[in-house]
């Protein structure tokens, strides 16, 4: 066991060294850590009252000033504080939705790759079916039917985005299971559970990490789009802020700060996740590494 753990530690440090060479990935990671820390410490400085229209004291629709660095919205709430508080909802939903999607995708992907016969055939059929469903439209219908809450939004995004993960994991599982040591393990009496959790899962885990990182980015975009289209968890998020700006007609009124700030937050975080995910892929995928991508 200690031999294995030492080897794992070594692999991890090598991985860090490789990742450190991906400059854009490091930048992305820095932005992510910054955003996550800000979201976590937000309750130490502000609370939900910054999103309350009744207690908002500022001037209405004021452009950025010293008191309100990012301006105010139609009820006099500070855009800066709302963006800060809203980051909690946006990031939380992004992370959890990606987690749900990854869990479903991994379990079904490994099952489809590990088992033969009808189990694999049925899972593949279902995966292909979900893959062709237009995901945004389906998520809208799901969220509209189940009613808006944080949980339903997370489920609606998770349930519509897992198929690509499942396909990826299945392909990797097939590749891993073709290796001789799996045969050896089976010959020694390993069952399905042992093979999938002890041999397949650790081998697909790095790939899973990269694809989950990218998935979080897309979940954040989907959450904001759903919120913009009127299906939200009734909590302030970057998407609901943009919805508010649209309802109020901020675009035609020229209130650029109301549109620009929440949108830039989304783009920054999404880009950071994308850069990280691509750097991870480049480190983990030897074919890409050789190409110097």
């Amino acid at each position, binding site marked *: 066991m200690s031999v294995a753990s030492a080897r794992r530690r070594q692999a991890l440090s090598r991985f860090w060294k490789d990742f450190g060479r991906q400059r854009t990935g490091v930048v992305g990671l820095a932005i992510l850590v910054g955003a996550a820390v800000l979201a976590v410490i937000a309750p130490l400085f502000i609370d939900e009252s910054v999103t309350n229209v009744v207690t908002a004291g500022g001037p209405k629709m004021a452009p950025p000033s010293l008191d309100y660095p990012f301006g105010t919205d139609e009820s006099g709430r500070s855009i800066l504080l709302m963006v800060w508080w809203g980051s909690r909802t946006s990031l939380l939903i992004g992370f959890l939705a990606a987690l749900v999607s990854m869990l479903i995708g991994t379990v079904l992907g490994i099952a489809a790759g590990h088992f033969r016969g009808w189990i694999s055939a049925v899972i*593949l*059929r279902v995966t*292909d*079916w979900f893959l*062709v*469903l*237009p*995901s*945004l*439209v*389906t998520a*809208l*219908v*799901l969220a*509209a*039917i*189940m*009613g808006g809450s944080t949980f339903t939004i997370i489920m609606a995004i998770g349930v519509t985005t897992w198929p*690509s993960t499942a*396909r*990826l994991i299945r392909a990797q599982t097939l590749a891993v299971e073709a290796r001789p040591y799996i045969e050896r393990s089976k010959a020694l009496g390993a069952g399905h559970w042992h093979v999938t959790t002890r041999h397949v899962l650790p081998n697909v885990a790095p790939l899973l990490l990269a*694809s989950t990182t*990218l*998935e979080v*980015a*897309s979940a954040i*975009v989907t959450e*904001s*789009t759903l919120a*913009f*289209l*009127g*299906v939200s968890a009734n909590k302030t998020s970057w998407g609901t802020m*943009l919805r508010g*700006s*649209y309802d109020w007609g*901020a*675009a*035609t*009124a*020229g209130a*650029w700060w109301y*549109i*620009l700030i929440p*949108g830039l937050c*989304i*783009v920054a975080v*999404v*880009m950071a996740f*994308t850069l990280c*995910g*691509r750097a991870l*892929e480049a480190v983990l995928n030897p074919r890409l590494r050789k*190409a110097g991508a």
Partner: protein
Amino acid sequence: MTAPLEAVEPAATQAAGPAGDDRPARRGILRYALSKAGGALFSIAMVIVGTFFLFRLLPGDPVRALAQGRNMTPEQLDLERRKLGLDQPLINQFFDFVGDTLRFDFGMSYEYKRPVLDLIGDRIGATLLLAGVGLAVAVSLGIWQGMRAGWRHGSRFDKFSTGTSLVLWSVPTFWLGLLLLLVFGAYFKIFPSRGIQSVDAPDGFAYVLDVAHHMVLPVITLVGVVYAQYLLVMRSSLLDEVGQDYVTTARAKGLRDDDVRRRHAVPNALLPTVTLVFMRVGFVVGGAVTVETIFSWPGLGQLFYEAVRVPDFTLMQGTFMLITVAVIIMNTLADVVYHILDPRVRSA
């Protein structure tokens, strides 16, 4: 989101029947097309069944949900229930639903008091126009830029175009639309910000120009978010070709660089990209819903959005099924066409 990063992997390679590889090519194609059509029919059936149960999952009483806000006596509610067939056993409701759907009878919209099919018929033209023009622009732009970027791999053009497309890819569709509205609709006032035509729309050729004028911002929004994936896939599939022996041979023959690219490398690289156009059509549909909402484009996407907002479940159900079935058919066609065009997949 992960779309442009993963390699194009048409379902063709793994869904093909176990036998039939060694048969004459044409029969193989027919067989393949039939099996794909069967799969598509199965998927469509699943959509219909899934929709039925999904919309029966509505929490509470659907009639109450439909009649929300309006004062209704218990007798009126009962009447509504009977009209919707909700007093029937679930199994009867199911067969009624399937029968109606197969006859394209999607029921009456609560919001508009008109058959859902009529509403769809009114709106579908605008969507086809917007999505068609948007797709055509996105595909040509993406392929052209991807071609140049991939051929001059690592050049300044490559870095610039790949960078731009990645940034646009990270931008939510609706935010790009809002920005365009802000800059071109409100600040410069060059383009109209909503609708498909002016209130006092002129006739004849001037009408066409008027619609085209209204289309500029929606099309740019749709293209901005969609074209990145075409660029990236075209670029990476051209990169795969650049190192091939036949490209070296073509160069050794003394062909000009342009000819090697145009006549040899690009046709081979084009195939996965063209397939992708159809494979990702569901993504374009999602974009269309958002774009139509922002610019009040009177299309199917806006109709669907209104159904979600009200919520008008009959209308939502009908548009959802139509959109999904259209996407399934497009995907299947892409699969089969890819199979016909690319002998490499056929013999694999």
